[in-house]
């Protein structure tokens, strides 16, 4: 009562202040004027975070890739709305028998934003630049994907960096670059589609040749070209006009000389709204025209209110990792199995994850070749779990359990709730759970270095190959899981190095069975993330890999 009486005069008086009145009146009028058929109206898309660099090579951050995919293109890419590798800037490609020579046939008449022509020399200039980077660029923070695909550099400055797998890039003719690597890995050809390897124009490369990354590990100052728009030019459907860092706004402009279908929007703006609810509210209030990472509960109400909320196909996995070195009880297979039986994964799928989610039986979704129907499953059975724990002599097990405090991910909406359910299940079978949270920026390094015995994490595939999932974790000793199993590691290497597709897929199935017997972690779910758009937008085809091409979108 009190509250009402005090707020009302407040609101009235505030409104009476001419300030507010003028503001409302004018704001209304600009909004009305803005809606409708005017195709020059900017399309505003809100992401959960701001971009970190204009040069996608320097990061492994998904929010930056959303921007960079519109501006830079890669040799290969995924089909629109799907996960098949198709030609990008290269119309066609072939690989040598042993998988070490990759020949690309570039599209004709492709122009960079600054007028340079795309040719084999331009492609090789990019690859050679990456290969010859020095200093701060060699930090795994600033060249993550190069190091995971091509190993090291021409001259490694740190002995921890692996030897380079990249040999050379030669221009066979005007439009035919040939890239040679030391040995085949199933990371190819998918690796050529990674957004980090978006090609920049030769003029750009010349202009930025002497720009260095300065500073120390963990406190790098990124080069100016990556922070101020104006230098970088790609071949994509949009050019980057401006990156206004104090508004967290990236302005993309339609590139009129694009080789393919020109973009539907004249201008596209990317903004950051970290809070999930705030993004939904901004869409409802008409401040933005689309956003990503929609909370499952918001899908129906948004659709009911006339918004479009397309759902992507499932292409991810959420798991609870067992770090066997962080708590020695977890080195006991029986304990790992007991914990797996303790968790009611179906309830998480039913009550927290978006419709269409499924309990995961292995470490990648069933949409990928190599998925095995024969893996050992661990059904929810708290009594059995309790028995197994007693059997293993772990009735009084205490485990630290980490989850991220400030984010949601495409594979993991509401981390807190998921944590809460699992933790209650574990406590129900007699395990004492000690919850630990870190902010996302901190969470990744800490879980990667093996500080947390139990933690939640997941993965959205970069390209269509099972090895992109299981190889990420189990191809060798990994401090994320903290175990050594030479049989498994050898089998992984053998499978990945096999250039024969059919044989490789069969090997993957065998590997999945093997992994689920070892049970290095508990796969929880694979679920389809949604993305939301305003009513008057023709949305782009949504991509299971979350690699939407916004040039396909337009005003209705």
């Amino acid at each position, binding site marked *: 009562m009190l509250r009402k009486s005090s707020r009302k005069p407040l609101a009235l008086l505030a409104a009476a*202040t001419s300030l507010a009145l*003028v503001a409302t009146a004018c704001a209304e009028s600009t909004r009305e004027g803005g809606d409708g058929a005017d195709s020059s109206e900017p399309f*505003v898309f809100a992401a959960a975070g701001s971009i970190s660099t204009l040069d996608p090579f320097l990061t492994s951050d998904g929010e930056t890739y959303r921007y960079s995919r519109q501006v830079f293109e890669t040799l290969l890419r995924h089909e629109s709305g799907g996960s098949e590798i198709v030609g990008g800037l290269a119309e066609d490609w072939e690989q040598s028998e042993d998988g070490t020579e990759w020949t690309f046939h570039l599209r004709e008449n492709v122009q960079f934003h600054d007028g340079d022509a795309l040719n084999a020399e331009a492609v090789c200039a990019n690859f050679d630049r990456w290969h010859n980077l020095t200093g701060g660029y060699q930090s795994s923070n600033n060249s993550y994907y190069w190091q995971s695909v091509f190993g090291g550099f021409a001259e490694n400055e740190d002995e921890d960096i692996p030897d380079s797998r990249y040999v050379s890039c030669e221009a066979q003719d005007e439009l035919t670059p040939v890239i040679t690597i030391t040995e085949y890995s199933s990371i190819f050809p998918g690796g050529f589609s990674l957004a980090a390897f978006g090609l920049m124009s030769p003029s750009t490369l010349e202009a930025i040749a002497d720009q260095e990354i300065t500073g120390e590990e*963990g406190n790098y100052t990124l080069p100016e070209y990556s922070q101020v728009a104006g230098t970088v030019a790609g071949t994509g459907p949009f050019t980057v006009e401006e990156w206004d860092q104090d508004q967290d706004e990236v*302005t993309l402009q339609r590139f009129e000389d694009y080789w393919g279908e020109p973009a539907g929007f004249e201008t596209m703006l990317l903004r950051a709204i970290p809070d999930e609810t705030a993004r939904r509210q901004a869409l409802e209030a008409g401040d933005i025209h689309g956003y990503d990472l929609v909370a499952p509960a918001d899908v129906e109400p948004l659709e009911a209110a006339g918004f479009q909320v397309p759902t992507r196909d499932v292409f991810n996995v959420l798991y609870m990792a067992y770090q066997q070195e962080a708590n020695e009880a977890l080195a006991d297979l029986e304990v790992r199995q007991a914990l797996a039986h303790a968790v009611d994964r179906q309830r998480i799928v039913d009550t927290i994850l978006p419709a269409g989610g499924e309990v995961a039986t292995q470490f990648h979704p069933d949409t990928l070749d190599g998925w095995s129907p024969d893996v050992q499953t661990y059904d929810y059975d708290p009594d059995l779990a309790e028995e197994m724990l007693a059997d293993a002599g772990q009735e009084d097990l205490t485990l630290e359990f980490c989850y991220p405090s400030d984010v949601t991910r495409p594979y993991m909406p509401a981390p807190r709730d998921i944590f809460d359910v699992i933790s209650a299940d574990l406590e129900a079978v007699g395990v004492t759970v000690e919850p630990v949270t870190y902010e996302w920026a901190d969470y990744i390094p800490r879980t990667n270095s093996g500080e947390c015995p139990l933690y939640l994490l997941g993965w959205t595939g970069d390209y269509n190959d099972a090895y992109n999932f299981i190889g990420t974790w189990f191809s060798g000793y990994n401090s994320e899981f903290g175990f050594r199993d030479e049989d498994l590691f050898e089998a992984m290497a053998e499978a990945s190095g096999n250039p024969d597709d059919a044989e490789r897929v069969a090997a993957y199935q065998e590997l999945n069975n093997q992994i689920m017997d070892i049970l290095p972690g508990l796969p929880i779910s694979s679920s389809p993330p949604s993305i939301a758009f305003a009513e008057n937008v023709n949305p782009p085809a949504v991509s299971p890999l979350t690699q939407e091409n916004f040039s396909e979108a337009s005003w209705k």
Partner: protein
Amino acid sequence: MLRFIVRRVLQLIPTLVGLSILLFVWLQRLPGGPEYALLPDDATDEQRASLRRSLGLDEPLTVQYLSFLRRIAQGDLGTSIASGRPVLEEFLTRFPATFELAVSAMVIAVAVGLPLGYLAARRRGTVLDFAAVGGSLVGICTPVFFLAFILKVVFAERLGLFPSAFRLSPGLDRTNLSGFAVLDGLRTGEWDVVADALAHLVLPGLALASIPLAVIVRMTRASVLEVLEEDYVRTADAKGLHRNTVRTRHVMRNAMLPVVTAIGLLTGSLFAGAVLTESVFAFPGIGSFIYSATQERDYPVLTGFILIIATVYVFINLLVDISYSLLDPRVRAQ
């Protein structure tokens, strides 16, 4: 008068020096030192040692502190870990947004709070008084982030009267002269920019105004009540001066002194309150930046921003003291 000012300024020096020591200690010494914050946890001892050397952490503390002071004096507050840009630059690009927000919150608080407090005092014991005092107590007791959220749900999400996020509509075409959207708009005559910026300020401004508004209402009321009791007001009333004259010349003027003080100081503290409001409204100012800096453990940003805000706060205090002593000669005499 001059002596008074000089004395006050001199008194600032130890406070500022102390503040810098406090922050220095904080930046350099706390949990394990910056090499732990800056390096990944699996970094080797050599890496830590080399970082310590390159940051000058192996020098004696006094040397470190002096070079820290020297860097501050040169305007070098370090580099943000998250963005890799200088902290001062980050502050300056975000300052105009928060300044405009703080000013609009203050305008709302003063425009509503002063008259309401005055009326409550004049009509002591009435429903109005009760509502004003009760309302301001409830205002103080309501978590700001919740109030902000409710304002957003009602006025942005449901009624669609005001924008729910940002400082300017995305894609708004404007000439950026100084970063101050409203001022720039007024100078260049871009009225749509002015209107757009003001519309974006209303809801966060109201939310941020809640605490200062409550404080101003209560202070004005208390202060007016106190003055009404003073002999000179009774004398003025008794000698038959016109009521309005008594009100303006005697009551309001004297009662305003503490309120003016409060307004000055509340403005300083708004910068801190903005942390909550800005993060609810995705308002790109200092507050939301501090929020993300806490999320990312961006120590240089936290230290630098706090140093700047505390210094600004101390100087606002000084200005308030000086203006106060100009208004009230008794303060000088003490």
